[in-house]
């Protein structure tokens, strides 16, 4: 606790770095995951192979993954964002796909009957109905990125993992506590914030909390 009081600015800066890393991962994984998920929802036979590849990627231990990326991306935030975005695809697409494929066909047919074109159907029907599941996926991505993001400090990606690693190397227990506490606070905050958004999205669909 002493460390936190005496070095509040350092901790705050690392906290923001960690948040930035997580937001970057969420951004890039949505950029890839949303179109890929849509593709998988339309083309059924692609699902098996793509999901198993994503499953294999997800299984690779994070420290190994970071090391394997060093020859290509060097050290720093770039390899961290690449690895975390790759992990995120499984969590994101699995949820997004469930959201998209569990929409009742009758609803889509009604939309078609009302004369909505493909884009309108996606934007006005499919997206809002699948949004709660997508947000659940984003929540998992945020939590895993915050967690694994601590390990990324090892390859100089910054963030709260810096406190953990430095604390262990210098046997500064107060620093380890501060790092662990800050990263746990960030995880809980992200969890509750995104869960709140999920409830809002559900409320928009069903008109009540479920």
């Amino acid at each position: 606790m002493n460390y936190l009081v005496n070095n509040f600015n350092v901790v705050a800066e690392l906290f923001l770095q960690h948040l930035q890393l997580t937001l970057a991962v969420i951004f890039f994984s949505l950029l890839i995951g949303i179109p890929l998920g849509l593709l998988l929802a339309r083309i059924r036979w692609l699902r098996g192979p793509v999901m198993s590849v994503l499953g294999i990627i997800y299984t690779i231990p994070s420290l190994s993954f970071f090391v394997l990326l060093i020859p290509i991306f060097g050290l720093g935030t770039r390899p961290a964002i690449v690895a975390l975005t790759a992990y995120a695809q499984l969590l994101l697409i699995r949820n997004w796909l469930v959201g998209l494929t569990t929409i009742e066909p009758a609803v889509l047919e009604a939309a078609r009957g009302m004369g909505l074109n493909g884009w309108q159907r996606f934007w006005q029907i499919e997206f809002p109905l699948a949004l709660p599941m997508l947000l659940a996926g984003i929540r998992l991505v945020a939590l895993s990125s915050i967690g694994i993001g601590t390990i990324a400090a090892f390859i100089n990606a910054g963030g709260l993992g810096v406190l953990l690693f430095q604390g262990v190397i210098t046997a500064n227990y107060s620093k380890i506590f501060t790092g662990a506490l800050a990263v746990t606070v960030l995880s809980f905050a992200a969890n509750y914030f995104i869960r709140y958004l999920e409830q809002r999205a559900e409320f928009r669909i069903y008109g009540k909390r479920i």
Partner: protein
Amino acid sequence: MDLFLKAFEYYMDNQSFFWNATRQHLVLSSFAMVISLLIALPIGIWIAKRTGIAQVVINVFNAFRVVPSLAILFLALPYLGLGFFPSLIALTVLAFPPVLINTYAGIRGVDAFIIEAAVGMGMTKTQVMSKIEIPLAIPAIVTGIRIASVEVISSATLASFIGGGGLGDFITRGFALYDVPIMLVGAIPVALLALTSESFWSLFLRRYQIPEN
């Protein structure tokens, strides 16, 4: 490719060191899994019948899951110091939530009609548990074990930072010398171990069927 060749050369020159580290890694991971199974399985089965306690326990462990594995491992240091045992305990703790939550969910998920039929056939509570509920919950339990083992094998790499040994030693050593091939000697086998464990349990799940008599 050059990097991989150099990594292979390093492996050839340090075979005994490599196999020692691999053994440590496997011992650390499997001990952690066995201990956490010995504790988490009975608790999971026990709380499955006690909804009140279960809600509390499950919520606590779900919240606990949010704490990053690196933080759990490094927090062992102030309390338990450096070395094999602190790493073992941290990894055991890490394997806890998936096993416990899946065991609970698996037993809770058994169809009430099946249990009723079993009771109707005159089975005692213990018989229902051992002959009906646990066998039917095996797929869920094994899924928990699968998730936990991959997590433990991955995190055992981090044990190197708190002196727990294992294949992570190559990664820390390679990083200290900024020698990528040495890091690969640790990184590639760990990845293979994780993938092997994942496929082993997936195969087991696919093969597992309830015997039909």
